[in-house]
């Protein structure tokens, strides 16, 4: 099976802070690939780079063999029709109902008649268990429901690649279980390729076919979920077991606090 996304020698810096340094990463077609790493490491930025919303300072990102970085505006928008991104915030349109939110990409890109469009939207809502909520306003939804509606909207155009940005953040155990099942089921039933970016290690390792762990501007480990669990790299052991002390610093870089206090 081929690679849907290929990242080649990619570097990216934001306001003089280097987030990625010569990163190489492949996303296999039809699989769920997880990208794990501590907060602030640039996981969301990586999704925006794949979606062409940001441009790397060097290197290249290929989607279906085509360069996302060098694509012209119209070409990039064509590529994005084959991508879906579930934002951490959901990013629903607050002035629209649940139904209209999911119908939005269909109304923009297709000429479907109203009955066909309604059936399609209801099918998408049914797949996330929210067909009964179609007349609610987006502002009336709980965080978990909002994310499921956003998922229905992101899959409305049947994308080839589905990207999930921290899908489990702030979810109660039931919502988390539902989302896990949804990601797995959608990947299988729609034949998608999925990228799940998260720091919820246990949940992600349950569904991922392949895992990359990012830290220190690059990949520190990769492999299957079992391979990652048994990896003895101290940085990985600290991250997976949630240990406060270890090679990955808890503190943002700063001068010595005791010295600073003494100087005052």
């Amino acid at each position, binding site marked *: 099976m081929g690679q849907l996304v290929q990242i080649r020698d990619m570097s990216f810096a934001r306001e003089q802070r280097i987030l990625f340094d010569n990163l190489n990463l492949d996303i296999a077609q039809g699989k769920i690939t997880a990208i794990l790493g501590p907060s602030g490491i640039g996981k969301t930025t990586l999704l925006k780079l794949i979606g062409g919303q940001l441009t790397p300072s060097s290197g290249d990102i290929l989607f279906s063999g085509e360069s996302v970085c060098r694509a012209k505006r119209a070409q990039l928008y064509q590529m*994005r029709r084959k991508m879906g991104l579930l*934002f951490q915030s959901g*990013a629903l349109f*607050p002035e629209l109902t649940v139904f209209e939110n999911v119908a*939005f*990409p269909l109304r*923009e*890109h297709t000429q479907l008649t109203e009955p066909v469009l309604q059936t399609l939207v209801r099918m998408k809502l049914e797949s996330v268990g929210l067909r009964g909520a179609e007349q609610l306003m987006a502002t009336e939804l709980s965080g978990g429901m909002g994310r499921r509606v*956003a998922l229905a909207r992101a899959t409305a*155009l049947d994308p080839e690649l589905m990207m999930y940005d921290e899908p489990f953040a702030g979810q109660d155990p039931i919502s988390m279980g539902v989302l896990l099942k949804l990601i797995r089921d959608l990947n299988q039933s729609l034949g998608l390729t999925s990228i799940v970016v998260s720091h919820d290690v246990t949940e992600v390792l349950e569904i991922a076919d392949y895992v990359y762990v990012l830290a220190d501007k690059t990949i520190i480990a990769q492999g299957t979920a079992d391979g990652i669990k048994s990896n003895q790299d101290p940085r990985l052991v600290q991250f997976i077991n949630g240990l406060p002390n270890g090679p990955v610093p808890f503190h943002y870089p700063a001068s010595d606090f005791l010295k600073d206090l003494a100087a005052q």
Partner: protein
Amino acid sequence: MINQIQRIGERSINFVTRLGVAGLMLVNALFSQPNWKFLRLVGLQVYNLGVLSLPIILVAGLFIGMVLGLQGYNVLVSYGAEQSLGTMVALSLLRELGPVVTALLFAGRAGSALTAEVGLMKATEQISSMEMMAVDPFKRIIAPRFWAGVLSMPVLAFMFSMIAIWGGSFVGVDWKGIDSGGFWSVMQASVDIHQDIFYGFIKSTVFAFVIVWVALYNGYYAKPSSAGISEATTRTVVNASLMVLALDFILTILMYG
């Protein structure tokens, strides 16, 4: 000294960069194929920007017209020239006050609303999500608002002038007792379609272009925080108002200088 030169250089580069970004935004927004979906969006924005601005424009126009009528009458009556009140009111409104005051009110009412709306859409990732759904926000969000603003404001300016002239006549004719026939016929004789009405229309179109451009740019590139949006909204009202006043001077020189 070196630091000051460096700061001036940095600001100049930033200014030119911002101008370039704003220009690109405008070009991307304007060059789109109009279709019925786009026209529907423009119609919706004409309602938001134009129709909802009507109350403030009409009320302000009425009061400004009445004040103009009263002040004009007090001055003209001492020369026995109160019959010229209609001319004075109509010319000052059609040439200057109509386009300029409407533009200032439009910047405050519609410009600030545009900046806040677009800024909030950006801050809540709605624009980002649109981009990822392969919907170009320049064409879906910016272009309809731009055209709606440019279409609405000249109409608002015209309505402002109409109700203000009526306000002037209310004070001059109904209250101070100037002869109604004289008031209207002198006005009719001295107002020129090209020199006064058309030039006023050009002015308000140019002002609308600037206000909407400034408002949309400030909203689209606002910092995604509450302080950032508040700062962008203030910047829209201040910058657009000052640009309107400066442009008015330049246009007046070109038209009547």
